[in-house]
């Protein structure tokens, strides 16, 4: 039996807000058991939250601009029609391609999209397998591109359940009063039948493979929860005003029913795997189940995705997975890198996600390669001679239309094709917006503005407002706002927020506040409270701001930005502990949130926890290296504070080593030439070439060897330095060849004194203090200390320049015993001339 297997189970739209109550009622025992034996946490989704894009990000570790799946549908290659999205649109390798190359076996069931199938080592039951006609009189032949290998079709063809096979025994658990439904008026029962049958088909194929095949990696995707939520979340308790009482009574258990059935299927799968198999269960986004549920869907592209919540769920258990621990910061793009790491495979540097090491009991450092796409060899890449008809699927298109993800196709195909192209391009622009790549987003959006009717330009203008505000082009933002107002769009935008946002960014917060205060009379949402709270903060009314932000968090505790803003306000009120708490919560919700890490760093610095403040600033800096100067400077400050406590310890044996190389090092102007002279007079042979002559700055000579300056290119001359002494300045120390043993005498001198001496030497004013250089020197000294510890051939002692002058005998004793040879101490002592100590800092 294979070891180290991993089973990935996708539950589209599964949300903790529904799961936790069901677990506490004992209705999801299989998931509960896995949580108790593993880790659990939020799964952060991406924008726009369209499932085919998201599940492809899960499988590739890349954002949609890189993987190419940009929506629910695609234009056929002959440009004559549109069809549900297929694998042909994916332009990067997925996990199963990588595993194929590594000789591993994968099973894939129902993954969206996985049609047409790729010729991998293993089995693919694609996302078209389960799609069948509702009409019992119509045949649904299986496409030869729906199953790989095709010769397995006979094993699976009878495992498809048809919607018309669904009985009352299947439906009643979801709708106990199903018999009261007037099926001419409400399509609920027919939707339930279709969802149950399709997901059961997927489950049948999955259990068949679990029972009968060998595999290393298996992924199964179910859309049941998502489809139940889109059809029945409006009937989920508590009843919203405006929902029909009769329908509510009939369908109120439908959503929870889908979770329970999913758990029953999970239980079966768990019974079919061994205890050494690692299991991941995850969703791509959550689903609004409270007061934010939408009863009347607005007319916008892929409107149902507006009901998607930012956080889905993530659960994992297995031999190397921590137990009963909550984990933070998991994102969809992290799943593929984390799975590759589980299998000991390197991560592509072109992947957007990171390995989430927090889930593992025992961790090793992730390995990297440039890109899996650039690797040569057999990856079972799709080599598909596209025939538009072969991949078209009217039934699936119809289902997407019914779910509201896709508009009813225009009878004129050219319009449908045009709309699809526009939607996909707009999705790509939104992906760039989500990645804060405003330039790329802008290029696509400006291009989209050239579109003519019936294309609605308002959504493009709305996105351009966001970009204009980011670029501080306020006049442009206002122009775009006017365009939206005059566009005649059918979309009901709440432009009051946009208007107040523009005014805020323009530095007119009082006017912005007026607009929002007026709106608050009829709108008590968390969004308006947050925006007013933020404006109060800008206007310096911190206490009122805290109250409003706390209320916003009460209404929606899952918004990372609310917690981060409250942390920011609390910092102003010197409430550092509370600020740290809110910043932490914000990071728990969204790991890739540089500002929250920065705020946490600020709070921790104030609380005196410098080590953790440093980590927080480092993270903020890492996540936003080009723009986050504040985090960069804060990091430098904390490092400086930490360095005040840095101990420079000697690493020495005091034993002479055959052919050892003695090095005198330090920052330039730290007394290295003096030490060289002392060693020379003491009897050490020095490797010098005398090319740099004595001058006013070093009247007794520099004791340098020219090839040292190019040591990074050529260090072969080091063999000449054996049993001799050579001067190598600190920045070049780490270029030495590790085949020799070294005794390094590292000269230390007050950095401010060094800088003054250097300024004087190069003819610059000593009154100008080079701050950047000072910080660089501090960093260099820290690096030397770290480097010294990890180099086995290096022994190093620190010698303070001041001690050379004031405690000469002690220094000579220390140096001589370090070198391990008899030396002429008297001659060494005569080298010290206190009159040359000219740049002492007046404290």
């Amino acid at each position: 039996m294979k070891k180290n297997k991993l089973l990935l189970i996708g539950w589209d739209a599964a949300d903790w807000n529904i799961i936790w109550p069901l677990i506490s009622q004992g209705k999801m025992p299989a998931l509960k058991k896995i949580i108790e034996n593993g880790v659990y946490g939020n799964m952060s989704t991406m924008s726009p939250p369209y499932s085919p894009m998201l599940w492809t990000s899960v499988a590739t570790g890349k954002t949609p601009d890189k993987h190419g799946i940009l929506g629910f549908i695609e234009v056929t290659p002959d440009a004559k029609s549109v069809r549900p999205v297929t694998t042909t649109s994916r332009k990067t390798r997925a996990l199963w391609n990588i595993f194929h190359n590594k000789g591993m076996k994968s099973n894939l069931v129902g993954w969206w999209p996985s049609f047409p199938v790729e010729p991998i080592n293993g089995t693919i039951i694609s996302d078209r397998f389960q799609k069948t006609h509702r009409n019992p009189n119509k045949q649904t032949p299986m496409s030869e591109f729906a199953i790989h290998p095709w010769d397995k079709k006979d094993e699976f063809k009878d495992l498809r359940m048809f919607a018309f096979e669904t009985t009352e025994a299947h439906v009643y658990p979801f709708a106990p009063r199903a018999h009261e439904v007037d099926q001419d008026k409400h399509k609920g029962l027919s939707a339930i039948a279709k969802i149950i049958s399709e997901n059961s088909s997927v489950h049948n194929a999955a259990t068949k493979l679990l029972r009968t095949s060998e595999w290393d990696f298996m992924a199964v995707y179910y859309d049941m929860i998502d489809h139940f939520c889109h059809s029945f979340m409006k009937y989920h308790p508590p009843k919203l005003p405006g929902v029909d009482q009769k329908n509510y009574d009939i369908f109120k258990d439908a959503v929870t029913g889908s979770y329970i059935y999913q758990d029953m299927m999970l239980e079966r799968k768990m019974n079919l795997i061994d205890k050494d198999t690692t299991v991941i269960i995850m969703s791509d986004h959550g689903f609004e189940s409270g007061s934010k549920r939408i009863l009347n869907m607005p007319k916008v592209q892929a409107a149902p995705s507006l009901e998607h919540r930012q956080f889905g769920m993530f659960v994992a258990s297995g031999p190397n997975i921590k137990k009963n621990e909550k984990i933070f910061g998991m994102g969809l793009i992290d799943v593929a890198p984390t799975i590759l790491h589980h299998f000991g495979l390197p991560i592509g540097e072109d992947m957007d996600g990171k390995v989430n090491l927090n889930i593992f009991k025992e961790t090793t450092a992730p390995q990297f390669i440039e890109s899996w796409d650039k690797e040569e060899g057999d990856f079972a890449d799709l080599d598909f001679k596209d025939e538009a008809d072969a991949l078209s699927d009217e039934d699936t298109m119809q289902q997407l239309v019914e779910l509201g993800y896709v508009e009813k196709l225009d009878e004129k195909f050219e319009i449908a094709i045009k709309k699809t192209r526009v939607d996909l391009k707009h999705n790509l622009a939104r992906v760039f917006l989500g990645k804060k790549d405003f330039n790329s987003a802008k290029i696509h959006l400006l291009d989209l503005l050239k579109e003519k009717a019936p294309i609605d330009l308002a959504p493009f203008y709305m996105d351009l407002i966001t970009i204009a505000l980011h670029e501080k082009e306020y006049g442009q933002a206002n122009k775009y706002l006017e365009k939206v107002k005059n566009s005649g769009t059918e979309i009901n935008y709440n432009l009051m927020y946009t208007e107040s946002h523009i005014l805020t960014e323009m530095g007119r917060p009082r006017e912005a506040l007026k607009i929002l205060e007026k709106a608050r009379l009829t709108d008590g949402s968390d969004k308006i409270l947050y925006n007013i709270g933020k404006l109060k903060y800008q206007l310096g009314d911190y206490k009122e701001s805290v109250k409003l932000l706390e209320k916003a968090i009460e209404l929606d505790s899952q918004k990372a930005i609310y917690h981060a803003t409250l942390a920011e306000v609390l910092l102003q009120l010197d409430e550092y502990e509370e600020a740290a708490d809110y910043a932490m919560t914000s990071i728990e919700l969204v790991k890739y949130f540089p500002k929250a890490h920065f705020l946490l760093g600020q709070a921790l610095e104030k609380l005196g926890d410098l080590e953790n403040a440093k980590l927080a600033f480092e993270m903020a800096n890492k996540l936003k290296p080009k723009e986050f100067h504040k985090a960069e400077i804060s990091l430098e400050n904390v490092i400086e504070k930490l360095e005040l406590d840095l101990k420079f310890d000697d690493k020495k044996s005091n034993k002479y080593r055959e052919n050892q190389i003695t090095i005198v090092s330090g920052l330039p102007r730290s007394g290295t030439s003096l030490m060289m002279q002392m060693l020379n007079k003491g009897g050490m042979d020095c490797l010098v070439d005398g090319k740099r002559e004595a001058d006013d700055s070093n009247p007794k000579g520099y004791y340098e060897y020219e090839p040292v300056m190019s040591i990074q290119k050529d260090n072969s001359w080091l063999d000449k330095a054996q049993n001799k002494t050579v001067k190598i300045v600190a920045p070049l120390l780490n270029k030495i060849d590790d085949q020799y043993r070294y005794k390094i005498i590292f000269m230390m001198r007050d950095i401010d004194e060094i800088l003054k001496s250097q300024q004087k030497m190069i003819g610059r004013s000593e009154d100008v203090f080079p701050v950047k250089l000072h910080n660089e020197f501090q960093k260099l000294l820290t690096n030397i200390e770290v480097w010294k510890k990890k180099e086995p051939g290096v022994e190093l002692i620190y010698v303070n320049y001041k001690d050379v002058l004031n405690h000469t005998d002690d220094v000579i004793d220390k140096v001589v015993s370090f070198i391990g040879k008899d030396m002429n101490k008297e001659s060494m002592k005569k080298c010290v001339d206190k009159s040359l100590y000219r740049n002492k800092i007046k404290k």
Partner: protein
Amino acid sequence: MSDVKVKRELFNPDKIPFVGSLGLLALGDVGFTAWRKVKSDHKQKELNEKK
């Protein structure tokens, strides 16, 4: 779902109702295939009785 209990009981091929159940479907291919067989037998029996 709260009003109707879903059985998570062990699979018993001798006690399969011809209308099926969610519990059977949750068993995957084994439960589904067994149910289809019972359903088909039941249908055949009905046809035979009509004849």
